[in-house]
């Protein structure tokens, strides 16, 4: 199937999110694809608050089925979360479980004023009542396939479709 151009989606997303950005907005990306996208948004908005990165491994709801992931990385939230508007960023919104885990983790850092969600692609098929504030595009992806963002050595983003690994 034809996948949309991730760079173009990213540019469009930045334009659409920009009006909602305030001086104290903080951007948090979900590792790995969401963190790359968050880097772009953070740079485009020239925010003074440093970029936050979450690795949601310790909050996943499939821990008791599939265990801890092999390369867990530390989360970094180098600012006070309390009363701050948070822009949460991920590459692909699917079941909503990752976003639930990320929101749980954010609340262990503090009580944000609000959380908005920006994603590059919404592939539908939600299993939780979660929706994105902004999504670059909607795309139906066949079941059992994994859609994710990849970044090449030059830092260019693209979408890739692969077989999902059995849990």
């Amino acid at each position, binding site marked *: 199937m034809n996948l949309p151009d991730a760079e173009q989606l990213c540019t469009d997303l930045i334009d659409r999110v920009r009006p909602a950005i305030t001086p104290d907005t903080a951007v948090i990306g979900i590792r790995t694809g969401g963190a790359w996208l968050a880097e772009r948004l953070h740079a485009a908005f020239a925010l003074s608050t440093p970029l936050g990165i979450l*690795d949601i*491994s*310790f*909050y996943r709801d499939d*821990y*008791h089925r*599939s*265990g*801890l992931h*092999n*390369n*867990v*990385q*530390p*989360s*970094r939230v180098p600012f006070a979360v309390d009363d701050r508007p948070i822009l949460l960023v991920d590459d692909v919104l699917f079941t909503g479980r990752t976003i639930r885990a990320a929101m*749980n983790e954010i609340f*262990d*850092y*503090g009580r944000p004023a609000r959380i908005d969600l920006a994603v590059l692609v919404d592939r539908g098929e939600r299993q939780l009542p979660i929706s994105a504030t902004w999504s670059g595009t909607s795309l139906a992806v066949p079941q059992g396939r994994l859609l994710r963002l990849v970044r090449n050595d030059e830092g260019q983003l693209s979408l890739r479709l692969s077989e999902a690994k059995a849990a």
Partner: protein
Amino acid sequence: MKNPQLDAQGRLQHLLTTEGLPKAVMEQILDTAASFVGVTERDVKKVPLLRGKSVFNLFFENSTRTRTTFEIAAKRLSADVINLNISTSSTAKGESLLDTIDNLSAMHADMFVVRHAQSGAAHLIAQHVASHVHVINAGDGRHAHPTQGLLDAYTIRHYKQDFTRLTVAIVGDVLHSRVARSLIHALTTLGTPEVRVIGPSTLLPTEVGRLGVRVCRDMREGLAGADVIVMLRLQNERMKGPLLPSAQEYAKSYGLTPEKLALAKPDAIVMHPGPMNRGVEIDSAVADGRQSVILPQVTFGIAVRMAVMSLLGSH
């Protein structure tokens, strides 16, 4: 032969010893611990991984510090922790070890943290429990204390990054030290090119060369150019026993003073598993000095124990 610490898929099933623990598993524990260090620095120091699980601390031998760090680790993973003071309970009434385990398993224990004066006690329990129950050895006799060895390895990696260029000197009563044995196995597996042991010949095991270490009889030879110095605790009973003339004599030859520390590299770090005998194996000027990482070891110990528990508790 099947490694009793791993399940059929190669995942960590029990942590009994660092001997024979695959390098990849060790690195996974250290990498995961690095993420838990971040968690322990937050206001909310808890993650939900072991919610609903019960961790039983079975300390047949006293150790307030180790038991406390396991308790904190389990609680920060949201587990329920039950501490059993064995000396005042059933064993004192004559119940066998495995009967005690069966009874606690009937109370739906998910994980046992075991300290026992008998080498092999944790192995025995691990062979006995059902496959969903996990055992962590928190020290058995002279044999092993794997989480201490791993937290020492974590501390070394934190300050020195790469094991493959390091000289590590372990000083003291290696013969009776499960801490030393567990650290030596961890360091050699992780690729440390030179591990030295230094101590009086009465306190070095005769087969020590087999562990892949270099034996040094005096501090001048042993500390020269070292990146890491690990001081072992001199047990009280050893000070009065037949293997040493006296604690003062020992301190003179093997106690770490600022003068002896100066033989090592200028950026060498000093470690000690605690509790310290100030003035015997280590001088206060060193223990409280700028090269000491003894207190960070304690902090990292919690993260390493969280990592081990979280890798065990998922299956």
